[in-house]
């Protein structure tokens, strides 16, 4: 075990632990949307989990840092907040906000907003919510791309559990969307297992289980391994 200090609180942690996970476990909240403990590589795409580490010239993303002995961390300095607020502004400027959103009150975005003391429609950015249709074609869930914050958790959850992801990011740049293109339930090599791991992990309810998803027990064996399948 080694000792680190976060916002003046001393913590004893195992060497090499992930800094973001360590802080969250100790009850010190750092805004984050894309971190997943199960994922081998941090995605570091949401740019919300910035902290300052003494001795480092600029804030760093906590989800990509392994703790070392004597590390001194500050989670709420002005430079940290500036970065977090910009990232959050950009995120919600394109996020669809509706009164009937099932994530209301338990949405990760609302939690981040509270923590940063910002509204969900912060100035000065123009709001350009994306007009994207709900995709009801997947067998066990519906996809609401207009709510998606592109954190990639669902892809990684499917990948971790089933060996390859049936969800994907399609298109590019500002057009990027989460997509379930070609996802099937018909016993092909790559069939949706109905495990709903994607819906469970989505921080903003962009993936919602179908009302009649009771049969989606998710006891599948995982997808065929494309490598092992050989030729």
């Amino acid at each position: 075990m080694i000792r680190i200090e976060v916002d003046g609180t001393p913590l004893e942690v195992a060497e090499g632990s992930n800094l973001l996970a360590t802080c969250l476990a100790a009850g010190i909240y750092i805004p984050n949307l894309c971190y997943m403990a199960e994922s081998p590589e941090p995605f570091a795409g949401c740019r919300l989990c910035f902290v300052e580490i003494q001795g480092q010239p600029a804030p760093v993303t906590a989800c990509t840092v392994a703790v070392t002995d004597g590390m001194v961390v500050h989670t709420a300095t002005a430079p940290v907040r500036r970065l977090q607020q910009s990232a959050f502004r950009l995120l919600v400027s394109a996020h669809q906000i509706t009164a009937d959103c099932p994530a209301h009150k338990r949405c990760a975005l609302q939690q981040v907003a509270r923590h940063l003391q910002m509204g969900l429609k912060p100035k000065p950015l123009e709001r350009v919510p994306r007009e994207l249709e709900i995709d009801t074609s997947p067998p066990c869930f519906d996809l609401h791309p207009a709510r998606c914050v592109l954190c990639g958790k669902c892809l990684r959850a499917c990948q971790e559990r089933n060996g390859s992801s049936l969800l994907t990011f399609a298109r590019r740049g500002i057009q990027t969307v989460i997509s379930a293109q070609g996802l099937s339930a018909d016993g092909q090599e790559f069939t949706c297992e109905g495990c709903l791991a994607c819906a469970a992990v989505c921080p903003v309810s962009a993936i919602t289980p179908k009302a009649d998803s009771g049969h989606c027990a998710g006891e599948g064996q995982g997808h065929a391994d494309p490598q092992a399948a050989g030729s």
Partner: protein
Amino acid sequence: MENAAGEALTAEEGAILADVARRLAAFDRERANLIPILQTIQNTHGYLAPAVLQLVARHLRLPPSQVYGVATFYNQFRFHPPGRNPIRVCMGTACHVRGGDIILENFERKLEIPEGQTTPDREFSIERVACVGCCALAPVACVGETVHGHMAPSKVEGLILQVRIARERAEREKKDHADS
């Protein structure tokens, strides 16, 4: 056979699928072959139909979503059959500065399709391209092989009409010819 939407295949789609299946046989089942395969199909057929992407995924033993993800990432791939008169609106630096986006928007509005798609009668498709090489004429749009410089929103409707009229005339002449 059915296409991805579960509709019966048109003869055209069926022919494409058969040709793609034949071409796929020449490629090893390696994911590194994904882009060369997509390029070959696009070069021969002008676009990638959903059923074609499924076939490619099957061949490479990749989840269909991953094939779709790669294909949609690159601008060079189209997902709709090209129109007889493809419209290419230049979005290069010079044309951008001179309001190329307004020209594009006008084409989209007049033809009632977004960029990347084809009108239902297959007459027009719209694409955005980078510099066509005649920046002095910015903003530029190409209809088929013809380059139109100094584009203005007011010229868009005229260009579309020209094509439609030329087509109607050609059809009438063909008909007269057949009648006589």
